[in-house]
């Protein structure tokens, strides 16, 4: 079977003239080589394509080409009502579905001036931190795999199943949970939730120590990561890096501390910082973040035992009546029907909310024109911004190190391209 020649060459017949200004003059005289990496490459974490200019093994410049996973999520959300478009956010950064839902719900709540009961706020924090651990586990598994520590992937995915079981327990879905809704949660936490999270709290610290050993005591790994992919604190700030990529360089900036949301200010935790700003420090910071997440979860579980109140706001303008009421009251049925078919009409306005996702600052800009659909939704996604520093990070490194550098900024292409 042969391909249609027209589509066949749509991507690959690049013209070197188009790279003028992006690569050095050497590439045009043939002194350096242009090499294409991706979009199908085992260590580009999805479908990133990088155009490399090489001199021997040394990377002279590197141009990320994104958009291979562009999904039109932001545009699609404009065609759905507010509540229905939460489904879209889960599929954006697929390692952080709860976090995406959280930032979108926070933006809606800010726009609607909707209150969230305490129980829901704490539950959100617990689940968001579980998601952070989940995301870091996948990053560790794959990042280790890229650098030759193949066992991390086996361990990480074993532990991840425990977390996915919890997500499935609360929401019915392993990954795309759509559990956070404007004003609270889809439904109350099930009774088994407490035991399952307690199991995580009991078993994970020892496991995280194991990973720490696997990584920090592995001479190959240490040699391949220390002093690689350096970025100074000033540069990291100038590039707008956030998350572990920024904290690895020693800048103390965590949205959970700087601009607390969902009552993070009532929790005690530290912000782990690196010193050298290299690949190794970014690894260490993320491992330490997992421990801090466990600390937050532990505090959260203690509070959840006391906070037995409602799990969703009772503002009937935005929140549908509970199931039990539908059997009793005709008005409730009508109201429910109206909310699910037409949706609610929020006030006009624009808001921006950001949270600390596993990869960095995840922001949501939401504009409303008073109709049941959002007028514009835009996400400030950490992967996209952090990827912009790739050129800076990988300059004058060996091509083999590039793999570790891409791993260390922890991109998710779904987050980047949306």
């Amino acid at each position, binding site marked *: 079977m042969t391909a249609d020649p027209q589509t066949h060459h749509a991507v690959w017949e690049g013209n070197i003239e188009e790279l003028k200004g992006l690569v050095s003059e050497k590439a045009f005289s043939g002194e350096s080589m242009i090499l294409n990496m991706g979009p*199908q490459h085992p260590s580009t974490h999805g479908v990133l394509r990088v155009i490399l200019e090489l001199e021997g093994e040394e990377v002279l410049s590197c141009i990320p080409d994104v958009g291979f996973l562009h*999904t039109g999520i932001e545009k699609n959300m404009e065609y759905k009502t507010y509540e229905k478009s939460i489904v879209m956010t889960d599929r954006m950064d697929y390692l952080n579905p709860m976090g995406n839902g959280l930032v979108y719900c926070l933006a809606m709540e800010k726009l609607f001036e909707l209150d969230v009961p305490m129980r829901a706020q704490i539950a959100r924090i617990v689940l968001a931190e579980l998601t952070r651990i989940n995301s870091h586990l996948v990053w560790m598994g794959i990042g280790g795999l890229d650098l030759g520590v193949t066992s991390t992937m086996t361990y990480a995915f074993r532990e991840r199943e425990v977390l996915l079981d919890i997500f499935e327990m609360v929401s019915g879905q392993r990954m795309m949970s759509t559990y956070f809704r404007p004003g609270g949660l889809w439904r109350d936490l099930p009774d088994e939730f407490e035991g399952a999270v307690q199991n995580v709290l009991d078993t994970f610290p020892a496991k995280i120590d194991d990973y720490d050993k696997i990584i920090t005591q592995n001479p190959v790994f240490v040699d391949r990561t220390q002093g690689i992919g350096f970025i100074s604190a000033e540069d990291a700030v100038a590039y707008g890096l956030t998350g572990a990529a920024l904290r690895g360089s020693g800048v103390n900036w965590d949205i959970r501390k700087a601009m607390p949301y969902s009552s993070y200010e009532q929790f005690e935790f530290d912000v782990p910082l690196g010193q050298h700003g290299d690949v190794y420090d970014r690894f260490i910071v993320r491992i330490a973040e997992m421990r801090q997440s466990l600390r937050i979860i532990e505090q959260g579980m203690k509070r959840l035992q006391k906070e037995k109140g409602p799990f969703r706001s009772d503002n009937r303008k935005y929140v549908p009546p509970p199931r039990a009421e539908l059997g009793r009251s005709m008005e409730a049925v009508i109201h429910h029907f109206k909310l699910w078919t037409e949706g609610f009409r929020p006030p006009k306005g624009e808001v921006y909310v950001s949270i600390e996702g596993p990869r960095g600052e995840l922001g949501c800009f939401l504009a409303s024109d008073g109709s049941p659909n959002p007028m514009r939704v835009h996400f400030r996604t950490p992967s996209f911004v952090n990827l912009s520093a790739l050129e800076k990070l990988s300059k004058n490194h060996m091509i083999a190190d590039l793999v570790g550098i891409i791993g260390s900024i922890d991109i998710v292409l779904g987050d980047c391209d949306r």
Partner: protein
Amino acid sequence: MGVSSKLGNLGVVTTKLEDAVNWGRTRAMWPMLFGLACCAIEMMSTQAPYYDASRFGMELMRASPRQADLMIVAGRVSRKMAPVLRQLYDQMPEPKWVLAMGDCASCGGVFNNYAIVQGVDEIVPVDVYVAGCPPRPEQLIHGFMTLHEKVKEMKWYEWAGK
């Protein structure tokens, strides 16, 4: 008598060769390491210890399409990705199979919009569709087994190419 039994058995031998080759193909079917989106994470879970696709001889993911038998389209295919996907498919040696994993690869899923190819069967021939967003690893394994059933039914004259 010896000759006739041999001749008579010849037909049996040919069918058995067919079965033997087909069986062999189902036991060591190497998928291509090709993740696109969220479904790829579940595909990795399928490879990982808990679900352990190596029970089906499918744990060895080949990064190069030239060493792969099966393309698992794990995720949404954007219009920008479509030519790449087609090229990868063309690079795979015969016999080759395609498994569309997830709603996006099967029909566009929740993304009925300008950016996403509405079903990967617009670009490559698909053998098995696995529904779900994302499909659970069990569902993917069921997809594998369905594909194995299909391969076992193949005739020798189909081996050279479909």
